[in-house]
């Protein structure tokens, strides 16, 4: 406990907390991305995967608790560090050249972080909790079932991204996440002291951070872009017709 307080009370220690919590969140981002990407393998794959996760409470809950803890630590240390930094520099310069030589991503790290947090809340309401009011389709996502009677995640993604404001918000948020990570991962490597040259590439971790952000952006946005370009349109329209038909005949679906 004393050890943890020592870390929390030092400037470098808080950066370790920030970096390690950020790193575990990045770990989640990668795992989540691999999950999402299965949408391109068709409804069977992704729905099976969804069902698998849902049934594994022994994996799901510890993972959720760890993630939540990391988010709390990350945001808490962000605000604590920010407050200290503001206090350390109470007066600026008259000819203020907006943080000399600092990258755009580094100057906007707090703003991108806050918008990501807002997006995460929306995202959870949208897909994880299936709150009908935020998905703009009027369809209850949590009630969707595939032919095997499992939650139809495939259809949910198709329907979700068929509304362009939702898809655009998603793409912007992922863009900001990548902006955040392009600086954040570099800062993280710096905070834990990883700055080696490897295979002739100097500052390999910095290069990894930059390319990682680009790759994450492309893969994450590929899903809404594909849907907007008509991916899975036949499946979606058939399902919507089916939903409408069963709503008219008053069977099951509603609620």
């Amino acid at each position, binding site marked *: 406990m004393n*050890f943890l307080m*020592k*870390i929390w*009370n*030092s*400037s*470098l*220690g*808080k*950066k*370790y907390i920030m970096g390690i919590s950020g790193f575990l969140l990045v770990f989640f981002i990668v795992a989540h991305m691999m999950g999402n990407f299965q949408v391109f393998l068709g409804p069977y794959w992704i729905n099976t995967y969804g069902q698998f996760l849902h049934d594994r409470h022994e994996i799901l809950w510890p993972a959720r608790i760890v993630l939540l803890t990391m988010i709390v630590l990350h945001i808490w240390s962000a605000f604590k*560090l920010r407050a*200290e*930094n503001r*206090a*350390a*520099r*109470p*007066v*600026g*310069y*008259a*000819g*203020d*050249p907006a*943080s*000399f*030589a*600092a*990258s755009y991503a*580094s*100057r906007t*790290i707090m703003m991108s972080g806050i918008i990501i947090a807002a997006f995460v809340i929306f995202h959870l309401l949208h897909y994880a909790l299936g709150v009908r009011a935020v998905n703009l389709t009027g369809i209850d996502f949590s009630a969707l079932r595939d032919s095997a009677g499992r939650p139809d995640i495939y259809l949910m993604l198709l329907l979700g991204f068929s509304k362009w404001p939702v898809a655009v918000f998603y793409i912007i948020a992922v863009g900001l996440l990548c902006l955040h990570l392009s*600086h954040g991962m*570099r*800062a993280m*490597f*710096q*905070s*834990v*002291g*990883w*700055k080696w040259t490897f295979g002739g590439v100097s500052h390999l971790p910095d290069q990894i951070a930059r390319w990682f952000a680009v790759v994450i952006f492309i893969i994450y946005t590929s899903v809404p872009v594909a849907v907007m370009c008509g991916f899975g349109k036949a499946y979606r329209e058939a399902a919507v017709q089916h939903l409408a038909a069963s709503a008219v005949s008053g069977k099951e679906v509603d609620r």
Partner: protein
Amino acid sequence: MNLTLKIWRQKNAASPGCFETHEARDVSPDMSFLEMLDVVNERLIAGGQEPFVFDSDCREGICGTCSLVINGIPHGSRKGTTVCQLHLRYFKDGQTVTIEPWRARAFPIVKDLIVDRAAFDRIMQAGGFVSVNTGNAPEANALPVSKEIADLAMDAAACIGCGACVAVCKNASAMLFVAAKVSHLNYLPQGKAEKDRRVKNMVSQMDKEGFGNCTVTGSCEAVCPKEISLDFIAKMNRDYAVALVKGELKKSAAGGVG
């Protein structure tokens, strides 16, 4: 050439300051920035006005005393140059130039353009030294140092302690200075024995002085007249983590025995 100067005037730490505008007429482009200020001051004195006080000593870029923020950039915009080595030929005739002191809570203003950088001295006192037994100087070749290590230590040792890194940082963080000083000694065999204690004590003193935290913007590296690299900050972060963990292990080992 002629310059219009907007110079910070402040009586002492307690009173509020403000900019005063002065003309620097017929100054030579071959003058250094500080020589130009000397001329302006002499004219002020001749006119019965109070001169501006500013810090300087060696005027050859090696002591780290000069400390002016020119148009928002500590030491001005020339790479790897202290303000005493900044010449007027890099300015345009008729240009307006803003001159301010370092701004950081840990560097309180003494008067006009002079700030108190004693916080750096206290950080050095906390660990920026090696303990050497008295007696004869040791045989010079008894302690081999590899070329790579000697180069790294030398690069770190180039820091002149001017504080421009703090001045430019949006968080007024002293990480680059402290990292240079920690790395310089921690790399060398002479400093190895006190490696862990050094990094812990210097970081702890840095935090006490009220400097901000590093957010890896790289402003310090860009403005540093000695071009100290951000890599030293990574080295210090690593050394500090190792020192924390080692300290914990040692404590639990001692506890086990006792």
